């Protein structure tokens, strides 16, 4: 009798975050558990809050600010999309860094971008290279964005037909630089992103866009950020800690998962909030106070 009692005591004294994860697992439906197991990735808090399923077109908006950069989320999602268990492809629109930067960052995380590019699983559109902008040839921003969308659509169509790739992810880093390239016409940028969103419905792609939340915080009218938040299925917000800088905890993440279909047919949204610490080869996610 005594032995049994001590066993139950041990079970109850497990750290609280373990209990929370169990609770979330029970809440998820059967299909996403199967999808998680099929991917066989080590699961962390971010992956779990994203819902695990990579099928079906979704738009993920990543918002960051000057104090804390959200680039690590883009790297994580990029690595997830390129993992070797699936035959997914990625179209990467880079406005901020050349390929060499991402190559080195992801190599430390165990993903070789150059090889993926050679295997046609990654299409890297380097917008830093001036010939992409074609500004000297007198093209307007509208023409440039239309041409860019054409490239993306063509790449998606080719990918789909070629080797029956299950899922294509379009990554944009980042939207505020696209606005600068479009000389401030946010309408053009919004149209472009809406067209990219239509690809999610048409071809089942995913769209991941990085934007800077603090740029729009002083603008009152409906601005680009609000429109994007409305379009997005998942909004990931990266903020610094309220208490300031720290070496152990680099900031906090808030994941808002909208339009979740519950069994009863209604849609809900779920909010997750946790903290993170960035390392070269991975990122640790943990609930406040539970960092080991």
């Amino acid at each position, binding site marked *: 009798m005594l032995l049994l009692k001590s066993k139950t005591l041990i079970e109850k004294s497990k750290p609280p975050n373990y209990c929370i994860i169990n609770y979330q697992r029970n809440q998820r439906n059967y299909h996403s558990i199967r999808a998680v197991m099929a991917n066989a990735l080590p699961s962390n808090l971010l992956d779990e809050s994203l819902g695990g399923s990579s099928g079906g077109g979704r738009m993920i908006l990543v918002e960051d600010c*000057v*104090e*804390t*950069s959200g*680039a*690590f989320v883009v*790297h994580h999602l990029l690595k997830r999309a390129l993992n*070797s268990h699936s035959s997914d492809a990625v179209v990467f629109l880079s406005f901020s*860094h*050349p390929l*060499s*930067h991402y190559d*080195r*960052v992801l*190599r*430390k995380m*165990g*993903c*070789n971008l150059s*090889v993926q590019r050679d295997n046609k699983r990654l299409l890297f559109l380097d917008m*830093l*290279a*001036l010939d992409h902008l074609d500004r000297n040839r007198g093209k307007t921003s509208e023409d440039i964005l239309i041409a860019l969308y054409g490239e993306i659509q063509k790449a998606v169509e080719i990918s789909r037909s070629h080797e029956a790739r299950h899922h294509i992810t379009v990554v944009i880093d980042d939207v*505020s*630089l696209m606005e*600068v*390239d479009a*000389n*401030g016409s946010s309408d053009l940028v919004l149209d472009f992103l809406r067209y990219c969103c239509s690809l999610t419905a048409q071809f089942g792609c995913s769209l991941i866009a990085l934007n*800077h939340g*603090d*740029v*729009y915080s*002083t*603008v009152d009218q409906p601005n680009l950020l609000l429109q994007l938040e409305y379009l997005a299925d998942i909004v990931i917000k990266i903020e610094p800690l309220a208490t300031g*800088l*720290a*070496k152990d905890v*680099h900031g906090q993440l808030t994941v808002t998962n909208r339009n979740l279909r519950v069994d009863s047919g209604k849609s809900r949204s779920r909010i997750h909030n946790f903290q993170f610490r*960035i*390392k*070269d080869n991975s990122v640790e996610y943990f609930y406040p106070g539970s960092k080991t």
Partner: protein
Amino acid sequence: MVMAANKPRSGSFSRNFGAASSSVPSIPGLKHGPNGTMLLSSGIPDLDKILGGGLALGSLVVVTEDPEAPHHMLLLRNFMSQGLVHRQPLIYASPASDPRGFLGTLPSPMVSKDEKSRVHETEQEKGLRIAWQYKKYIGEHTSESHRGGKSEYCNDFDLRKPLERHFFSGKQIDCVSLKESADLGAFHERCSSFLSQANQNNGNITGGRIAIQSLCSPQCEYSNREWEMLSFVRSLKSVVRLSNAVAVVTFSPSLVSTTFSIRLQHLADTLVSVKAIPDEDKELAKLLTGYQDMVGLLSVHKVARFNTQVPAILETTTFSMKLQKRRSLVLECINQAPVDGATGSSYGSSGSCSGSSKTGSFDF
């Protein structure tokens, strides 16, 4: 996982050519930084230390000015002088009608005699220091062992002595007046050709420097066209990124809208702000030790991180700017005065990190 097994490529580890392994750097004025980057000096030894060795080649440094004090000019002067001492090509732009005049105010490197006396002084004071400040000694030891090298990576500049004529004899010094240009396109062309010239230097990397002072100054015609200025900085950033140069741009946030200012801050790889300290402020004098010597405050908001996703978390982000003996610029951690208000000599006096954080009357 495909880990470059096919090609004979080097792995993700880059060899750290630290100061310990190579005694003399192969290229004067440049040194290897973390993650495969190359660094050049900002001209201020303390700032180099704070930023992890110097400014990374290909990075864009943005300095936000305080309209009440010209401290950003101190940073620019040291930056430009360091470039001239190392014979690195330089282009300087400002809203003045005759920007060449500014070159006359550039400081000269300190003579070695003064350096030796400074080293001697700190050694004497060492005995008086309290033992728990051991971190200081480690830092000073490594920096002392590198003084006396013929061409130093970072010089101490004497702000009272102007730079000697022979440093200006190089052909690669260009001055541009921003007031003259109706739009920034022509200036951008000039920067691009400057960078391509600097890159072609017989295959040797020398590192180039671009210094743009007060970009949003209202004297310039384009100053009310914010998207044009943003577009210029963005294109500048992309050409600098692909070159071996560092660009320093200063601007005053009070002259532009908040969204523009934040966009520009996001564009920056390294973001630094300078702030003025009011003279004769009794509250501050009670709060901070060494207040009398302070000329301003410098905050580091972002440090350039290429090829890595790990952010640089500094021990402290705000430093006081002091002119040591009215000659050289030093940056120190802010030390809070003892609670009982007893005035005495300050503990920190040469770039050490022993101070505690400041109290909340500041909002940086």
